[in-house]
């Protein structure tokens, strides 16, 4: 019999592991450059030896395409635009801001998005050295999932996001409302009916377990927030 704390930890670990697998399988569509090709981009010792030996490369290389992801600045903007009510000064609103800052804005080294010392927007000296483009690494996904969990745990984040989609917490989860909320997270992206039905089922299952309407929507919002599609440009 595991304790609730251990159980919670195992579940979190499982969720994180799952998203890491998910991210790695989905976000790099193709990365089929051979090691020879990669080596040719830098004069490593192996490469120098290869050159000295007069070796030649064989085969072909496929298209090197990686989906563009948002860096820390973009992800901050996205989280705020969905979950934050700029007019609110409540404690929950401050908590939402704090969680976004701590898990996203301050994680430039893991999410990318260098700061500029001349603009005075560097929270940390080494942030000026971070890459401008988004970084893909396991820690990145961990921070984003954690931010989603902590932000959606605030009732105000749930009501704000629903409000921006023209919904309220008592709205029924149906094809129309779920597609509306989907469009809030991923503007203009198409969604299959099957995916929408799964989100509807998630909402209804929560209601069936005697959860509040706010909690039922919370789980839908968390699911959408933690998806890699949230990060895509």
């Amino acid at each position, binding site marked *: 019999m595991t304790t609730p704390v251990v159980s919670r930890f195992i*579940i979190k670990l*499982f969720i994180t592991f799952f998203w890491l697998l998910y991210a790695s399988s989905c976000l790099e569509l193709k990365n089929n450059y051979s090691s020879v090709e990669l080596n040719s981009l830098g004069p490593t010792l192996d490469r120098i*030896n290869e050159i000295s030996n007069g070796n030649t490369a064989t085969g072909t290389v496929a298209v090197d395409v990686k989906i563009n992801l948002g860096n820390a600045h*973009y992800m901050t903007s996205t989280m705020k635009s969905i979950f934050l009510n700029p007019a609110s000064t409540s404690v929950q609103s401050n908590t939402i801001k704090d969680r976004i800052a701590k898990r996203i804005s301050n994680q430039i080294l893991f999410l990318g998005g*260098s700061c500029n010392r001349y603009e005075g927007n560097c929270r940390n000296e080494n942030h*000026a050295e971070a890459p*401008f483009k988004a970084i893909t690494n396991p820690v990145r996904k961990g921070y984003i999932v954690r931010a989603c969990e902590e932000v959606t745990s605030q009732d105000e984040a749930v009501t704000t996001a629903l409000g921006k989609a023209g919904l309220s917490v008592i709205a029924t989860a149906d094809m129309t409302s779920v597609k509306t909320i989907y469009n809030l997270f991923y503007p*203009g992206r198409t969604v299959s009916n099957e995916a929408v039905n799964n989100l509807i089922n998630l909402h209804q299952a929560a209601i069936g377990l005697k959860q509040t309407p706010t909690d039922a929507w919370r789980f839908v919002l968390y699911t959408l927030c933690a998806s890699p599609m949230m990060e895509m440009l």
Partner: protein
Amino acid sequence: MMNQLRILILSFLLLLSPLLCTQLSAAEKLSPLAIYARCYSQITNQRIELSSPLTLQVVTGSVSPIQACLQVFNKALFLNNESTIANTADAESISVVRTLHNLHSSWFTAKDFTDIDAGAPFWTDGSRDLWDTSTPALYLTKALFEPTPNFSSILSGQKILIPVRTMMNPVSGAQTNLAISSYLIKSATAQPLQFAPRGVLVGVTQTSPAMVNYPAVSYKFMVGGLVKHNQAGSVALYGSMGGGLLGNYTYSLLNINQNNEFIANGGLVMPRKWGRSVYRDLFCRELPVVRIADAVPFVAPASDVAFRTSTGCVQCHASMDRISSVVRSARFASIGSDSKVSSSRGATFINFPNPTLPAEQVWPVTADPDYAKRPPSGTLYFRNYQGELIDANVSGVSELATKILDQDDLYICVAKRYYEYFTGVSIFNGDITDPRNPKPDAAAMTHRNYVIQLGKTLRQHNNLRLLITDILNSGQYQKSDGSF
């Protein structure tokens, strides 16, 4: 109960994931709103406002997504006579300039001054106070936003560019936050010493060559061959050798990375990091950029310069050392106390003394102690994207820049970078006729040929905005995976 729900969520996520993943992997033609959201985020680093009038126009179809995106971009164009955006308080315009300038900065090898004297961050910190570390990228940013497009200006002329930020004459340095009074270096003119501008970037302007004076002091004073120990003198704050960004002294300060003892000798001691950066920054190429056979004529088995005896070594040095010889005269001076004593702060400066000795005839196979005093001739030596050997002698930085402007590879490199940024597709722009390099497959070759054409077109119209517009209007940009 909460944990049960988490398990419930997890099970649904597992069910959803294959569906979402399929959507990510398939070549989906994006909707107008999705295209606008993508483009807007890429030029502003911000998410679109769903309720903004422009977004609604895209949704209703009254404006195309690319037109809408370019409307946002065009708000950030610099004014004709100001070198700044029209409305320096407009957050959206500031975001556009900031985002694309940061993108340009990311393309340069050297992004910061480094501690060229081990364990001596005080001079490096001073350099950060005096010069904006993104100075080379300002040339691209200006070319992108200036009213009259002129891409080739990045490598021509003696313009010394500096950023226009909200505080053009800050009272303290961006790195140290110290006041001018903490510095012993003083402006050589009546004007007080100025730090690099601070605040948000709202434009790019030019400044004039300038010198700074330093006094004789009694404490340890790290000056090298350029100036004599414990004597007052002056060094360049701003300078240019021509050739646009290549000739800007700040580009050399960022890339040569040597100390006060440095004197190039044509052998082991050379400013070769500068040359490596030129191939990277302007051609998107990593060494070696020639073939083994191209190195053979320069191998000297009897040389006392170790790398000259090996073909594998010469394959890189034949390109980077010989191009770097145009900045062979570079000398460094770290001015100021070797401690953080107030009023004794300084920075590391660079200068390029005029030649005093005749030119060498060939690339010397042994170290030449007078090499730095000879004329700054050099050689651009690389295989271009078609496999043709470019072997061009030049008489200095300015002529080198002209030769680089004559190569399609410069334009292809810039096209490659924008194409990768907007579509996510990275092409191989090197010499595919070299048997060492594996061949792109049909799809990769299609992308490569497309980018080569973009580059050649850029060379004709000389307009970065048209290059970006072409990419945004391409079918690849408007698909989820960048495919044709």
